[in-house]
């Protein structure tokens, strides 16, 4: 592979819009994916992530906007003229060809030299040596997945697109393949663009995650950044879980914003406050909330919430998950690690809650507090 300059093979989408007869699937999307990165497009079904992927693959044509790889405009290039390959959701392996020929398909179309050696190397990479002469239907789901990956990778594309590649696998295999995919990506050093609705999958594998909703990107960044500092209620709810509590902004005090939360004054770091309004949603992740007996000293100086009553206790092994009803009627989620040093509270007990101010975030009150909460 000639690696003239890294920047010349990065993927750029600018102002890409795709309208179908009755709705807009993708709305003025801007996206830059650096060469060699593992990029995830995360969102619920119907958010436009697959349409975005198909436009990069050339299987759909944007209504407007442009798609470039490096300096080459590929917006209207035919699928077979793009340095892009896809791992399809249902693999789409050719049933009449064996594993070897499936993988060799792209190489043969481009009259590549040493097809057999390249296919063999690829089979080694995905750990399928010895399966070369089997037909796809003789393979397990996980093996088919690897063939689909090998078939795309062997062409050394500038960008590899993965459309829910692990969706058809069971949970255990999915975990194994996540690690596997990450290993392969690091090994080959290609740009992977991965579309998924599974937030855990996106966070485990990708360097950069873009959370997509209703045709636009809500927020983009490293997984930890998105999780710790969401900018919208959708991201806060879709990526993990969040407690969102209505509050009135009292004012700004240096690096902190003071918020009145049903009579309790809490503070949120200024760089985590994503609203200019007078009202907002105070957000805090359940595992950042500490729970204690009434009056007990809590190791979280700052925001202190009294008068909670435990309404639900779920013991899940590594942690205990509580629902705590606050005086204003809202139930907050609290996850506590089972370190063995803390007592496990029972249903109906009175408790105090607290969290360190630096973990809280503040979101705009105009956003739907239930956005991004999955129904399942």
């Amino acid at each position: 592979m000639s690696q003239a300059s890294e920047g010349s093979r990065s993927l750029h989408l600018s102002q890409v819009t795709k309208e179908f007869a009755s709705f807009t699937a993708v709305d003025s999307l801007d996206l830059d994916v650096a060469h060699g990165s593992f990029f995830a497009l995360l969102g619920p079904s119907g958010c436009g992530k697959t349409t975005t992927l198909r436009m990069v693959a050339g299987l759909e044509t944007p209504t407007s906007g442009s798609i470039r790889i490096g300096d080459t405009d590929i917006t209207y290039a035919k699928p077979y003229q793009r340095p892009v390959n896809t791992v399809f959701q249902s693999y789409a392996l050719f049933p009449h060809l064996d594993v070897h020929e499936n993988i060799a398909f792209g190489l043969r179309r481009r009259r590549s030299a040493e097809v057999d050696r390249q296919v063999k190397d690829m089979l080694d990479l995905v750990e399928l040596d010895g399966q070369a002469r089997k037909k796809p239907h003789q393979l397990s789901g996980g093996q088919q997945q690897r063939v689909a990956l090998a078939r795309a990778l062997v062409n050394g594309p500038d960008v590899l697109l993965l459309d829910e590649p692990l969706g058809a696998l069971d949970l255990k295999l999915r975990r194994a393949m996540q690690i596997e995919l990450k290993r392969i990506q690091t090994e080959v050093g290609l740009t992977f663009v991965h579309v998924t609705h599974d937030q855990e999958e996106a966070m485990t594998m990708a360097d950069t995650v873009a959370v997509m909703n209703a045709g636009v990107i809500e927020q983009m960044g490293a997984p930890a950044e998105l999780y710790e500092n969401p900018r919208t209620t959708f991201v806060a709810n879709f990526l993990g879980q969040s407690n969102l509590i209505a509050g009135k902004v009292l004012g700004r005090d240096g690096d902190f914003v003071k918020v009145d939360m049903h009579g309790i004054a809490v503070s949120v770091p200024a760089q985590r406050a994503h609203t200019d309004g007078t009202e907002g949603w105070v957000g805090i992740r359940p595992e950042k909330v500490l729970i204690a007996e009434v009056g007990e000293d809590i190791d979280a100086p700052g925001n202190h919430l009294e008068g909670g009553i435990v309404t639900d206790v779920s013991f899940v092994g590594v942690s205990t998950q509580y629902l705590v009803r606050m005086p204003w009627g809202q139930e907050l989620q609290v996850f506590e690690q089972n370190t063995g040093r803390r007592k496990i509270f029972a249903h109906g007990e009175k408790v105090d809650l607290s969290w360190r101010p630096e973990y809280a975030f503040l979101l705009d009150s105009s956003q739907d507090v239930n956005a991004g909460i999955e129904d399942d």
Partner: protein
Amino acid sequence: MAALTAPARAAEDSAKRVGGSRWTGYWLLAPGALWLGLFFVVPFYSLVSASLFDPNGSVLTGYKVNYHVGNFATAVKDYHPELLRSLWYAGLATLICLVIGYVLAYAIAFKAGRWRNLLLVLVIAPFFTSFLLRTLSWKLILADHGFVVSTLQHLHVLGHDGRLLNTWLAVVAGIVYNFLPFMVLPLYASLEKIDGRLVEAAGDLYASPFTAFFKVTWPLSLPGVVAGTLLTFIPAAGDYINAQLLGSPGERMVGNVIQSLFTSSQDYATAGALSLILMIIIIGMVLVYIRKVGTEDLV
């Protein structure tokens, strides 16, 4: 093909438990077996007997089986031009049917959208009138002073006294017309099953639409091609209506010979032998064809 897989065996075991008697399966076969016995084995036996009749028999003196194998030699000697012509016409018609039928089936399967069902009905629609009537109307259409011939003469495609009726072209065209639905339907069935994403995947893997067709769509449609060509070729090779109505004696096919031997000259011995020869040739060709195209590898 291969040995039973484990789940298949398990299913079989449970079927046994539920089914009770091990004879149930055979009883269920009985109606089909009876049908085959009555309408295939018995007539076939009588055909074989006829082919071994004493060639000197007649309606007046009666026929008797004297194992006269010479009937086969006579049949080949006297009627090999018709036999070869039948295979040639049927083969040509099958090839034309395949080309037209493939385009039609492809269009219905992939391009027709909501018109798909209507088009399928239109393909079958000719069956609502009799085979004979339809062929007779072609006789009118292709007649010497009909508009087709005069138009073609006007355009100098046909010579001044050129004609269509009673030519080999008319016979082959008639066969193509009459057997086209038998080609289209199996082709449609196998094309329609092809996952469009496979073609997308081929495009993604640098295949132009043309290459994608020959590397993916065509091989995946081979079961339909095999079924369609057999369903067309076999009856076409034995057909006599088209040659009778649209051809002249110069276009006689083996079907016409058998028909006239049976009904006019009552030479049952030669007719029977000729029928068996046609059958054996077709079975032989079909076996070679299936071996060659090899649908077993296909899913």
